[in-house]
């Protein structure tokens, strides 16, 4: 089996789910799949999904790594608020764009390292460790914005959220670019391999010389970095920092995306691509419900229903049943082969 078919087999359930969901929406809402060009810029529901998916997709990249270490990062929604507040404050005080971006990213990484200290050094359970920043983070963001929604007017920074380049909205570049860069970093170095080993069996990995602490730190730092980028996009998009609502509950969507992407919460083997498709599935459902004209109060329930179906199809119970069916068939074939061979 070559590399490509193996990848395809890994991603098949997620791709199929995405295709089915897009198909169903396009039946309910004709014109859903049309993409048009207006004023040299792409428009359409599909493009909208790709733009709106940016924050969750970015969070998903970091969350995949954290979950692969057998952890979880609940703080990233709050980190979005912190980094958004930092960026908005710096912009409104007239700092140049590179400084704003660098400081915001730095703050995001610092948040991740804080989680890393709690998880890797103090050995606090990840769900508790990151819960601390999840709660405290919005408080920190409120302190930075001094309790108000801090708005600003800066077209270059706003372009991060609403601008376009060569007809394609900039958030799309940002999340795909970040995902590619981190994906390459993870898979072209040994980080991914070592993170998987640590997530599956930290003790065995440590005894083989793997520096588990460093890996935990990297995973949480990358998660913080991704949240910082997402925070800037969200802030740039609304031209303001809302400490209470920016990125609210997005960490839960990110966890869901990772799970829909088939990475086990028990850590270990992960696929960033599959998680990203998971994020697209979630965003497609969000956008799809909106465009198909259902009363908005149904949104959350429909979303939950669809996700239950997707997860049921991946559940160990169902996989066992499928595996059994497959095995019986293969067994039949084998028996057949054996009979032929004896002839």
């Amino acid at each position, binding site marked *: 089996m070559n590399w490509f078919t193996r990848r395809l087999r890994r991603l098949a359930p997620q791709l199929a789910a995405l295709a089915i969901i897009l198909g169903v929406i396009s039946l309910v809402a004709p014109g859903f799949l049309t993409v048009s060009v207006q004023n040299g810029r792409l428009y359409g529901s599909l493009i909208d999904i790709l733009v709106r998916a940016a924050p969750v997709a970015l969070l998903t990249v970091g969350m995949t790594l954290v979950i692969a270490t057998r952890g979880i990062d609940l703080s990233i929604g709050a980190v979005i608020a912190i980094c958004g507040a930092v960026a908005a404050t710096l912009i409104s005080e007239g700092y140049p764009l590179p400084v704003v971006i660098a400081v915001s990213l730095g703050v995001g990484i610092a948040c991740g390292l804080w989680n890393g200290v709690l998880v890797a050094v103090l050995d606090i359970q990840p769900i508790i460790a990151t819960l601390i920043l999840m709660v405290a983070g919005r408080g920190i963001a409120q302190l930075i914005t001094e309790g108000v929604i801090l708005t600003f007017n800066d077209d270059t920074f706003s372009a991060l959220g609403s601008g376009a380049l060569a007809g394609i909205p900039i958030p799309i570049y940002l999340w795909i670019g970040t995902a590619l860069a981190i994906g390459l970093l993870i898979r*072209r*170095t*040994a*980080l991914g*391999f*070592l993170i*998987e*080993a640590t997530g*599956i*069996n930290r*003790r*065995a*990995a*440590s*005894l*083989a*010389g*793997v*520096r588990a602490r*460093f*890996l935990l730190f990297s995973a949480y730092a990358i998660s913080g970095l991704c949240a910082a980028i997402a925070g800037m996009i969200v802030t740039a998009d609304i031209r303001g920092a809302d400490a209470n609502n920016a990125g609210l509950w997005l960490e839960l969507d990110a966890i869901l995306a990772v799970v829909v992407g088939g990475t086990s919460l028990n850590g*270990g*083997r992960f696929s960033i691509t599959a998680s990203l498709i998971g994020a697209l599935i979630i965003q497609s459902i969000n956008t799809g419900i909106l465009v198909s004209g259902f009363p908005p109060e149904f949104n959350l329930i429909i979303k939950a229903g669809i996700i239950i179906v997707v997860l049921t199809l991946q559940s160990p119970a169902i996989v066992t049943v499928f595996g059994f069916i497959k095995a019986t068939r293969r067994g039949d074939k084998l028996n057949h082969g054996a009979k032929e061979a004896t002839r």
Partner: protein
Amino acid sequence: MRDEDMSVQHALLEARGIGKSFFGIPALDEVDFTLQGGEIHALLGENGAGKSTLIKILTGVYRRDRGTIYLHGNEVSPDSVAEAQTLGIGTVYQEVNLLENLTVAENLFLGRQPRRFGMIDRRTMRDRSKTLLQRYGLNIDVDALLSSFSVAIRQLIAIARAVDLSGKVLVLDEPTASLDAHEVKGLFTVLRQLREEGVGIVIITHFLDQVYEIADRVTVLRNGRLVGSRTISELPRLDLISMMLGRELQHITRDHQAEPETVDDRGAPSIQFQNYGKKGSVAPFDLDIRPGEVVGIAGLLGSGRSETAFLLFGIDRADSGTATIDGEQVAITSPEAAIANRFGFCPEERKTDGIVGDLSVADNIALALQAQRGWMRLISSSHKRELADSFIKSLDIRPADRERPIKFLSGGNQQKAILARWLVTEPRLLILDEPTRGIDIGAHAEILKMIERLCSEGMSLVVISSELEELTAVAHRVIVLSDRRHVAELSGRQLTTDGIIRAIAGTGETEAA
């Protein structure tokens, strides 16, 4: 015993031909076990001998594959712990299986609280608890939370509950492991009292002194088979140890007579540990390892064998002594530091400490090398494939599928893959803790052969094993541990299974290490 006349016909508990396999590997094979009423019966054996498997079968945790169990001559087949309890077989595990956040009385009557008008009758429960515990000389507040008492008291409470619940057979798994000498005495008084009352007691322990102090009979298991069952008063300690460690020679044995004192010809020691030790783990010891030398470590369970390995590999930090490699002092404070000095370690607990189950065989083989190279220099997938394929071939790992998750391999093949993991790092010192435990005979012989090949190539090895023939077969020198102390070092003509057994029993001419 006083009720001998009653039990002439039927033993209290009798197991015949018990067999049990896990994933095709036999854990117990044709084991017989007989317990009389009013008897304290010690069940002995090294790790993996099958003690806990036998206990779990008798107490309904596991289902046996073969064999019959009789209680008072009636065939029984406990399918659950609860069923075994109702039949009369109660168990107290090392980790006392009671609930810390309930009171003593609640623990004693959990699941069978006395009721009155449908409500729990607290007063009756309290009174009955008090009377019950007084039988064991415990005068404690039964309304206090269990967590407010010491392990020793909790254990007595667990015993009281088990005896009250079951009453015929009491199984104690390592009951003295976390007790001090005084508490052990108290426990033994209670056990003697129960013996007088006719309870049959099975006790698992690795403290031989205590076996001689308390037990009437011993049954020894080894590698899942019954070695024998003896009356303790007629069994010298030396014979007991040789029953546990075995000395039937079955494999290739190095002819130590033919190569007298070759050890000294091997040049200066390249790795030296001096006065190396850690409080509460292993008393300070000296250990010199020459290139191409196999140093064996022998001792009973709990003698500090694995702890020595943990110190050598930096898993535990030594709090005294120095380590020197080629004359230069090194600090081995972590596995990483040990690996940086080209050490390797195959742990005893393969599943929890060795394999990374969900990863492929190839990934498992590459893990230590990758960790050593650091995260930035990824081993290319073609190099990884080559490494895996060459070791799958040279160590005959089966199935020969490098992409298969290692958890689906048999124990022997997993062990070979872990060995391969270290061999790719080209270590100067390889520490093997029970390298042949739980693996089939074929792989067993192959691993011994490989140890010989590696040392002939100049690698130094430390081999820890409870199989004495294995040690005498492969080791040039054997360090003997007893009670977390190096008590002897044997080489040349002294290096025989008898010599090791005598050293463990403390009756041979021993050179203090």
